[in-house]
């Protein structure tokens, strides 16, 4: 049954607070609002709600009242507080700093998004002097919490820069006393005892790609020096053994290619075998090498969503029968749905984190709004460059035109389709993904990220209709918000 156009005549705009809605396939309507509250209504309830005829005192009336869907019962102080809490990042300066210490890499991954270069490439390493200047710029950020994420290429291919950055950041922080988190994203193939000891002594978290069992991982991540998977597993075990009960540890990062699509359960099992707390079913981004190989390794949003739903069904089963285990994208959305705290995920917030939440520093000292901006520069488009560590102050970087442009372009209220979307309170877009695919910064209903975000959120809301699933999801959140 559909809505009758006559409903427009009966619309009681005096009683309806701002809300967003969508009709699900089972005929129920999902309602959300700017505070992130949500409820499901059937057709009859929705008709009554629109015409202001929900009888006071009923359970439905009370749900709508406490959820902030009825205009006459709004608590403006509370709503402002919630708005502020849900957009806490607007009061913070740039906290995530991605440093690419080299473009050289010894792997030939089919999806490489970083435009890495062979190990014998010249002039693709960050010098120790540039590394120190980079740390100087990073510490100029007034943010009390700083994360420095060292990436490549393969960052261990430029060990002098890694060592300089880690030492110098720790040294500066003795005076600055910020909450400093250091992380290294590595394929582990160049790891040795000396490097590991140094990294662990300096409390550097490690993150490595793990695409699934050996057959899947080695298919995606080609390494001529042996089995990439065997190397990852060997060091993973060693690092886990030495970081028990530490705040820093090793995490895995999985990238989904066309080849992965058939094996969601096997990929989840691999992470369970490694003792991981959860995993990130990351989709392929249209940057770097992946742009060229898309025909062979890419997939449609719908194909990815079939994979995602299968993996999530399996993860839910694991949670119910074996142990707690989360999926990262789902957890980001769930934190926004079930609490008033923002999870601090740069790509899923409004505005996105480009420049205002994160910056990317290339090996040559050039600074970009984000890693995507840097990746575009590697393919010849320098539009999202903010300056360079040797010449531009942090204030200059933060006020550069691309920062303001991307903040405006990723503000969901400015997007024709997003501004009325039922998932607006929880969603966010990456304007550079749009730019890479369509040549402009704006999200459109047909774009891959929109369809995927909507598909994942559809799944989560469908599953939360079952209280057992909702309890599992709530358990994934470290700090559960107030019960809704």
């Amino acid at each position, binding site marked *: 049954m559909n809505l009758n156009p006559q409903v427009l005549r009966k619309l009681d705009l005096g009683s309806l607070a701002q809300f967003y*809605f969508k*009709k699900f396939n089972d005929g129920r309507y999902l309602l959300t609002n700017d505070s992130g509250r949500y409820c499901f209504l059937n057709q009859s309830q929705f008709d009554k709600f629109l015409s202001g005829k929900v009888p006071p005192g009923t359970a439905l009336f009370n749900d709508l009242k406490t959820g902030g869907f009825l*205009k006459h*019962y709004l608590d403006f102080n509370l*709503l402002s507080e919630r708005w502020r809490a849900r957009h806490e990042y607007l009061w913070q300066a740039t906290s995530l700093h991605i440093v690419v210490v080299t473009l050289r890499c010894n792997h030939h991954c089919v999806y490489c998004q970083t435009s890495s270069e062979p190990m014998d490439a010249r002039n693709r390493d960050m010098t120790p002097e540039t590394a120190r200047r980079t740390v*100087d710029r990073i510490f100029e950020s*007034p943010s009390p919490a700083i994360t420095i994420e060292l990436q490549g290429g393969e960052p261990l291919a430029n060990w002098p820069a890694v060592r300089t950055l880690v030492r110098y950041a720790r040294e500066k922080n003795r005076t600055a006393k910020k909450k400093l988190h250091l992380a290294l994203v590595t394929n582990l193939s160049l790891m040795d005892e000396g490097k590991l000891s140094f990294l662990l002594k300096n409390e550097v978290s490690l993150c490595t790609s793990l695409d699934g069992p050996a057959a899947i991982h080695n298919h995606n991540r080609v390494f001529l020096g042996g089995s990439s998977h065997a190397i990852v597993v060997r060091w993973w075990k060693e690092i886990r053994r030495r970081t028990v009960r530490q705040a820093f540890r090793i995490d895995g990062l999985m990238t989904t290619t066309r080849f992965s699509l058939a094996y969601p359960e096997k990929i989840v099992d691999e992470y369970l075998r490694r003792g991981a707390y959860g995993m990130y079913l990351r989709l392929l981004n249209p940057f770097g090498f992946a742009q060229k190989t898309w025909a062979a390794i890419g997939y449609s949003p719908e194909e990815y969503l079939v994979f995602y739903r299968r993996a999530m069904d399996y993860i839910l089963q694991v949670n119910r029968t074996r142990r707690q285990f989360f999926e990262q994208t789902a957890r980001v959305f769930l934190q926004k749905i079930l609490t008033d705290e923002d999870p601090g995920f740069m790509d899923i917030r409004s505005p996105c984190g480009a420049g*205002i939440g994160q910056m990317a520093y290339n090996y040559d000292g050039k600074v970009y709004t984000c890693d995507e901006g840097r990746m575009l520069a590697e393919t010849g488009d320098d539009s999202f460059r903010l300056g360079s560590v040797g010449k531009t102050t942090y204030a200059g970087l933060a006020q550069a035109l691309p920062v303001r442009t991307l903040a405006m372009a990723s503000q969901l209220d400015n997007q024709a389709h997003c501004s*009325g979307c039922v998932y607006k309170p929880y969603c966010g877009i990456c304007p550079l993904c749009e730019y890479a695919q369509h040549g402009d910064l704006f999200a459109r*209903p047909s774009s891959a990220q929109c369809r995927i975000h909507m598909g994942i959120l559809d799944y989560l809301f469908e599953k939360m209709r079952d209280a057992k699933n909702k309890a599992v999801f709530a358990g994934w959140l470290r700090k559960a918000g107030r019960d809704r």
Partner: protein
Amino acid sequence: MKCSSKLSSAGKAGRSVRLKLDCRLYPAEALQAACYAFHGRAQCTMRMRGRFAYIEIASSDQGREPQLTAQEFEQEALHQTIRQRVAQANQKLREYITIQALCACQQVKESGSPALDPGLEKQMEKLFKDIDEKGGGGDPLGITIPWEQKHKRAPIGK
């Protein structure tokens, strides 16, 4: 007010559909939003004549019945109309809540009082005036001031 639609065989394979919609019921802006929502699924052409909008929809899915596409579009137009009317009716309230959160200003004392009473209107006008006068730009929170300068510390470790 009446919403009317009819099928036509204007498309190449006779799979397109033409709708005639009354703009007194569905504002043109809502119809544009409905067309945009079909982006990627269908090609929509909209022409205005008097108080009617003529919309031709050619679905990308050749197997889809034109009547289904028409029904789906009319529902989308209805949803978009509700969204726009609700958004317009709540615009000032949303702006008030957002500005209060952004400015951390003096909060409304009478919690639970009816929306948009004269006192509330006055406060909102004052807030809008403040924003207009101060320009809404600049850097009032000092987000772009280097840490060392903000805390008056000497450069570290050089």
